[in-house]
């Protein structure tokens, strides 16, 4: 499975580079994801979600390099994609892949959301065409002929001078800059490599730990995902052994110690 994924990966990477999509400011994470999906004109009915995830992350990286705004929403979607990717990397029994699984639900909801979003994007295009047409049509904003404007009701009827002054005063205040306290927002700086080291440390500390135990310390969804990926990686490298006594039971993890 792992092999499969990486094969697709490399194919997609070469292909993608030839597209050379211009980096623009995307109207949000769905916009970016849609762009990636729809520009991938290659007919691969089994393009793994991993490929989309990789591309998406690559974009975020380039957006950051170009100092484009990467808001937290982009990162949340990235986390969701990574989550789907990591689930997809696990060997799954056929019957477990049945509908209604968590993975299935997440993916269905993401697909539904993208389709909804695309619908509104199309509606926005329609509005654009209408607005453009209307902006070419000029109404008549012309003073009334004098004989009429004399008898016309006072346009300022009911407006007091004090009202006008209040308005002027308010409008001429220096614009308050709505500063948002950003001290609680920080960049997530931990890499998978660091998590791998951390997991190893904790396993050295105590030779056997459960999966639940290892993930229990995670503060955020993305951290949990990183720990999970770290465990997968360690397992692949053969550095840890994983065992599970029964279905849905605790997953025990221990270091494969070469010295022992």
């Amino acid at each position, binding site marked *: 499975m792992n092999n499969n994924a990486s094969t697709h990966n490399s194919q997609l990477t070469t292909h993608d580079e030839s597209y050379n999509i211009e980096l623009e400011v995307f109207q949000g994470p769905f916009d970016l994801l*849609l762009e990636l999906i729809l520009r991938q004109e290659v007919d691969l009915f089994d393009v793994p979600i991993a490929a989309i995830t990789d591309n998406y992350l690559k974009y975020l990286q380039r957006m950051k390099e170009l100092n484009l705004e990467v808001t937290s929403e982009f990162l949340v979607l990235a986390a969701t994609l990574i989550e789907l990717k990591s689930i997809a990397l696990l060997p799954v029994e056929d019957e477990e892949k049945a509908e209604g699984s968590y993975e299935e639900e997440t993916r269905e909801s993401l697909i539904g959301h993208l389709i909804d979003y*695309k619908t509104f994007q199309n509606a926005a295009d329609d509005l654009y065409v209408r607005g453009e047409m209307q902006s070419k049509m*000029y*109404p*008549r904003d012309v003073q009334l002929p004098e004989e009429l404007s004399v008898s016309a009701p006072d346009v300022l009827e009911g407006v007091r001078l004090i009202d006008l002054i209040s308005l002027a005063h308010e409008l001429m205040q220096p614009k308050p800059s709505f500063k948002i306290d950003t001290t609680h927002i920080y960049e997530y700086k931990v890499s998978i490599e660091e998590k791998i080291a951390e997991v190893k440390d904790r396993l050295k500390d105590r030779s056997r730990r459960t999966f639940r135990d290892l993930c229990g310390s995670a503060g955020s969804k993305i951290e949990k995902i990183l720990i999970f990926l770290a465990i997968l990686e360690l397992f692949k490298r053969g550095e840890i052994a994983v065992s599970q006594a029964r279905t849905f039971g605790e997953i025990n993890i221990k270091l494969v110690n070469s010295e022992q």
Partner: protein
Amino acid sequence: MLKGIIESLLFVSDEPLSVAKLQQVTGQGQTEIEVALEEIKVELADGERGIVLQEVAGGFRFFTNPKYSAYVEKLVLSSEFRRLTQAALETLAVIAYRQPITRVEVSNIRGVSVDSVLANLVAKGLVKEVGKDDAPGHPTLYGTSDIFLESFGLKDLGELPSLEEFSPDEETARKIQRHLQS
């Protein structure tokens, strides 16, 4: 005669005139007004005339034929077209089709925070507060304004194409499905 009266009223008015208003000023019945308006509209609709009659925001108003906009702009101070950003258009589309709607609901559909875009649309008068939601905290509900209808040449919201017409085509939907399969 009634046609002439209505023509002169539309000519001096600086806002769309509703059928009710035209009834009130002319003392004529609804049917007569509607027939006269239709006649004026048809006469002006040959595509070559300088003026067109359009129903916007619940009333009728004369506009210049869009075909001649280049000349009109040469004469009057060319209004730098208030081109809306893609973000503003998307937000406006969501509000137009889902109103009344809260800020958070718009954010959820667009996948990003819409605070500043929404504030800008309110400042431009295209979107307005229309009430409070019953949900906890009673968030403000937003809807589109008459200025919105006028700016996009719409008689009323019913003139907007149904949202179903904008569903992504089959190929797009298939692509989305396919690419998110693991």
